[in-house]
């Protein structure tokens, strides 16, 4: 499988296939299907400084080829995570990526500080969280807002930081550049698109929280375009995601400029998908006599 070996920032992964935050629990939920050691890496569910119970009401809603979710970052908080879940994640024998969210810069900083003492591969900094200080507009919408949190986190973090961009950013390229300039070591994109559903019988929004996050195959063409645009404008490595469900999809993202890719919603549809994608990429490299999958990164 050495053709798939991928270096991302300073982490060497067995392959470029990572499972996305919020779709894979804390790494153990799919062990009935396959050994997570086969994966390039595992992103934890989004963790915040303090425990969060998540959102009330309906949390899932299907749309054509898409899924709206309003989980609301339900998680036990960084301390319980480190205590209870991280050790298990570390025993999975794959790259461990911890996804960190927060509503204030201090929350991000405290979480990152606590992780400094831990054995992880790197941090995925989720800046799609509503910034309570700026009227609830997510850190990931305006480049300046993102730059502030990224540069502060960068200063104190012992670990490499991959910033996870929101496709709702006003300008995805400026956002990416601002993160790079603020010290991001890598980028992942995209998080979910803000979407909505209405229950016409009740004449109400489906979600208590009004809007929710759209993921799944529906968003793939837009996510792919964003990865391509960002790749052309930054010099740090990119993890691409958004609707990937086959190895062909994965290869499209790699050709668009992603060094590695993540599988999110597809885990729900086909639990074996990450493994099938790894096998498909491996076979493609073999058939094309390519020594390293890295040769395809950004060829388009």
């Amino acid at each position, binding site marked *: 499988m050495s053709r798939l070996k991928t270096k991302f920032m300073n982490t060497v992964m067995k392959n470029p296939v990572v499972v996305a935050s919020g779709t894979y629990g804390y790494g153990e939920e799919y062990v009935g299907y396959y050994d997570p050691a086969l994966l390039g890496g595992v992103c934890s569910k989004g963790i915040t400084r303090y425990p969060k119970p998540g959102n009330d009401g309906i949390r*899932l809603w299907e749309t054509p080829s898409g*899924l709206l979710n309003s989980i609301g970052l*339900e998680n036990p908080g960084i301390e319980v995570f480190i205590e209870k879940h991280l050790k298990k994640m570390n025993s999975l024998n794959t790259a461990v990526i911890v996804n960190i969210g927060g509503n204030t810069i201090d929350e991000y900083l405290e979480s990152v500080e606590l992780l400094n003492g831990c054995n992880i591969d790197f941090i995925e900094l989720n800046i799609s969280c509503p910034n309570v200080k700026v009227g609830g507009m997510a850190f990931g919408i305006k480049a300046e807002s993102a730059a502030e949190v990224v540069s502060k986190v960068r200063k104190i973090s012992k670990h490499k930081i991959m910033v996870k961009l929101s496709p709702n950013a006003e300008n995805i390229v400026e956002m990416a550049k601002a993160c790079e300039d603020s010290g991001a070591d890598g980028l992942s994109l995209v998080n979910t698109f803000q979407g909505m559903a209405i229950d016409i019988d009740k004449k109400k929004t489906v979600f208590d929280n009004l809007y929710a996050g759209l993921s799944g195959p529906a968003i793939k063409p837009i996510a792919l375009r964003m990865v391509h645009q960002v790749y052309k404008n930054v010099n740090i490595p990119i993890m691409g995601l958004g609707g990937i469900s086959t190895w062909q999809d994965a290869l499209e993202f790699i050709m668009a400029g992603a060094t590695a890719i993540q599988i999110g919603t597809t885990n729900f549809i086909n639990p074996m998908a990450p493994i099938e994608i790894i096998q498909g990429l491996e076979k493609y490299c073999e058939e094309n006599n390519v020594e390293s999958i890295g040769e395809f990164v950004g060829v388009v």
Partner: protein
Amino acid sequence: MAIVVENECVQDNMYSLSVEYSGSCKMGQFFMLRCWDFDPLLSRPISIYDFRDGIVKFLYQVMGKGTEKLSKLKAQDVITLQGPYGNGFPYLDEEDITLVGGGMGIAPLHYAAKELYRINPNRHIEIYLGVREENPIIKQFKDEFPNVKVNIGGIITEDIEYKKDHVILTCGPEIMMKIISEEGKNQGITVYTSVEKRMACGVGACLGCTCKTTKGNKRACKDGPVFLGEEILYE
């Protein structure tokens, strides 16, 4: 990938689906079913109605797109079964049992009754079934088990005789399970309820099926679907 053995319309829009399955499973567990690509996107959770001789049986009602597509399956067609998932009902060895099912909630109770008798043929089991209209499944229950009480179109909770030395297992509309849980608590009777939530992953990974309990949030798919009735915080 599994093979459909039979998929027959039981009545109106209620179907009974039999599928080859070589693994094992427990009463109260469910499978996520799909026989489509991406439309709908997610698999559909359906309880185990019966299991024997390498064939698992489901009883389901056509509600929307997913169950509609399931209803089109024919013998020999291919279906994807993910599971069995969930904790299932507790395998109580000694206790006498009261089972209460409402609507499609009667489905998991069929396999539960069977299993409970299997592990202890001498126990006493009372079965209450609340359905909107007479149907062949009710007859099946009556043929297979003694002490089946049926309420057609009424309110099943009004019929239940709460017996102190029984454990109650229940599955059905939330309001039904809520009333039984409360009454059970009042009378000091242990009640287990099987909750129904929208599910994406079925394995505890997405937190889409969270259920509020006195012990904090629980995942209906993984920590449940069976919980102690008194632990559930009904909405």
